[in-house]
């Protein structure tokens, strides 16, 4: 089943425009545009904070097809905040190890572990089809009374003024207007809103194409990411193998730039690749097959007055680091708490400017990593190919060359090296996350109950104290006096001010009441001022 070439995973009931009644003219404090993982996560964050949420989305279905499959530990921690983390981990395929092969050798030239720090709740990565993630997000949203999803409502116009926008929404029953103070544009890489506003989306296109085949077969293989340079079944090029739930596997073959896309996905043309990788006698079924080309680019700014962009609408990367959805999720985790405080009137509007400062840094780091991987996988000159091959040749024998092998540097949290919300360290720290970095997890024991540090942080700000007698504060306190491993990871006796998105705002060896108050004020201040 498919719609305009997009395969359908699950149909959703079109939201009948007539049901809008007089409500069409209703003024919204904010509206979420898009029902991809990023729009849905944004909506769920805001709904869980008690806001009335409206989503408009062009689709009236959850799409299938080959999209994101690898979700990082950071994404899983965010899904935990949204109440669907455990469902995703349960359904998904857990993996931590990636192996890189070269030529026909069955010994990897390089191997990495995506969870170098053990004893954390979530694994390094979970593979799960993007449609399950979207489905679970939709389930959670549909279970809430304060959420309305307008399936089949496409934004076709926007009139932006200083204090809000009027959207033109096109449905199968005609157009209507919708006024909203804030517009959260999560409408994907081809963002209509970005185009309508004439905003830039500059970057690099990589001259290469990849055959992405999701195929079903039964074979026992370890749940690891396997990547090949120059394998016998795709000579001179690369291949990638990933396990997904339901006996579906993602196979990814580099094809080169000048390819006939339609011919490439014909079963008889694909079979040699697939059989080459899996073995001649393998029986498989095609689930979805397509040819992709990739780009790395971002908008110069994500905040344009009261229209705010997130996810693929704001930035796009090549998929080799799984940095697409995995970097869109921290966008909305960052944006949601700030918008919540601004709408409640407990923080100035200018706090939202910090979203731009912080998440454009995140996007830059993702684009940098993703571009470097793509340059290794698709060298852009003869010389670049020579170096790449030299690295691969050396890596088999010499340990030093192995870390240079770049088959994708997988998504990891991007620290905010400079943020107007962070208080620089006053005290010396030998360990622990710095201001601007995300909290590290650890097992903890609270009142005789075992749990995880991240799970015990508040939805608002938390004062995390590794000792007795925390400073006076009206913020939520998590006091870990006999902290064990957590104490080792953060430093005994220390105090951390943690933001709602689990980013460290400030930390002290000896915090006073006033230190905490000042740092908290700074973390919710006007970042544009």
């Amino acid at each position, binding site marked *: 089943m498919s719609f305009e070439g997009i395969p359908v995973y699950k149909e959703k009931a079109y939201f009948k425009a007539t049901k809008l009644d007089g409500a069409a003219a209703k003024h919204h404090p904010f509206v979420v545009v898009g029902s991809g993982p990023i729009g849905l996560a944004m909506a769920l964050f805001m709904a869980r904070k008690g806001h009335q949420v409206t989503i408009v989305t062009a689709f009236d279905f959850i799409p299938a097809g080959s999209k994101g499959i690898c979700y990082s530990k950071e994404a899983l921690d965010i899904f935990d905040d949204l109440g669907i983390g455990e469902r995703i981990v349960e359904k998904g395929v857990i993996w931590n190890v990636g192996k890189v092969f070269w030529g026909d050798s069955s010994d990897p030239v390089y191997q990495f572990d995506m969870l170098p720090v053990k004893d954390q709740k979530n694994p390094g990565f979970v593979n799960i089809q993007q449609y399950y993630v979207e489905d679970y997000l939709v389930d959670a949203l549909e279970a809430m009374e304060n959420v309305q999803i307008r399936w089949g409502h496409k934004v076709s116009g926007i009139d932006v003024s200083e204090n809000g926008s009027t959207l033109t929404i096109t449905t199968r029953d005609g157009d209507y207007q919708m006024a909203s103070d804030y517009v959260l544009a999560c409408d994907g890489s081809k963002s209509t809103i970005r185009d309508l506003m004439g905003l830039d989306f500059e970057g690099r296109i990589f001259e290469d194409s990849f055959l992405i085949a999701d195929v079903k077969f039964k074979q026992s293989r370890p749940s690891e990411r396997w990547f090949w340079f120059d394998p016998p079944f795709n000579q001179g090029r690369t291949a990638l193998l990933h396990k997904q739930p339901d006996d579906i596997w993602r196979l990814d073959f580099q094809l080169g730039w000048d390819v006939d896309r339609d011919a490439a996905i014909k079963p008889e043309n694909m079979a040699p690749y697939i059989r080459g990788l899996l073995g001649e006698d393998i029986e498989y079924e095609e689930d979805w097959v397509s040819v992709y080309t990739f780009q790395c680019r971002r908008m110069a700014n994500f905040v344009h007055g009261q229209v705010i962009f997130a996810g693929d609408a704001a930035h796009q990367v090549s998929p080799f680091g799984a940095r697409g959805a995995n970097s869109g999720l921290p966008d909305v985790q960052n944006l949601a708490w700030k918008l919540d405080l601004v709408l409640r009137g407990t923080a100035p509007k200018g706090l939202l400017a910090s979203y731009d400062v912080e998440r454009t840094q995140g996007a830059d780091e993702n684009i940098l990593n993703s571009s470097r991987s793509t340059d290794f996988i698709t060298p852009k000159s003869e*010389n670049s190919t020579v170096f790449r091959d030299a690295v691969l040749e*050396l890596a088999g024998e010499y340990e030093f*060359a192995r870390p240079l092998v770049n088959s994708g540097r997988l998504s990891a949290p991007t620290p905010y090296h400079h943020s107007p919300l962070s208080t620089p360290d006053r005290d010396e720290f030998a360990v622990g996350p710095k201001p601007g970095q995300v909290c590290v997890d650890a097992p903890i024991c609270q009142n005789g109950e075992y749990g995880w540090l991240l799970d015990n942080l508040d939805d608002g700000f938390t004062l995390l104290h590794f000792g007795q007698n925390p400073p006076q504060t009206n913020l939520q306190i998590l006091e870990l006096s006999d902290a064990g491993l957590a104490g080792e990871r953060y430093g005994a006796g220390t105090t951390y001010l943690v933001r709602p998105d689990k980013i460290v705002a400030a930390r002290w060896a000896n915090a006073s009441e006033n230190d905490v108050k000042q740092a908290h004020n700074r973390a919710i201040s006007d970042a544009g001022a």
Partner: protein
Amino acid sequence: MKTSGTLNTTANLQDSDTVYEALINAHEGLSDKDSAKLNAKLILFLINHIGDKQVILEAIDKSNSQSA
């Protein structure tokens, strides 16, 4: 790993003629492609041995005749 040194641009190698000769001889009879690969491997070995990011970046910069 050091990251802060500066590139030594004064003579620092004993019997440099022998080393230079070995470098040239190593390329003898190689195709352009194999020569290029030899150079690449040599650079990779040496930059790892030097192990100082600042020094390596400075050397890259100074080697590029197009950069001022």
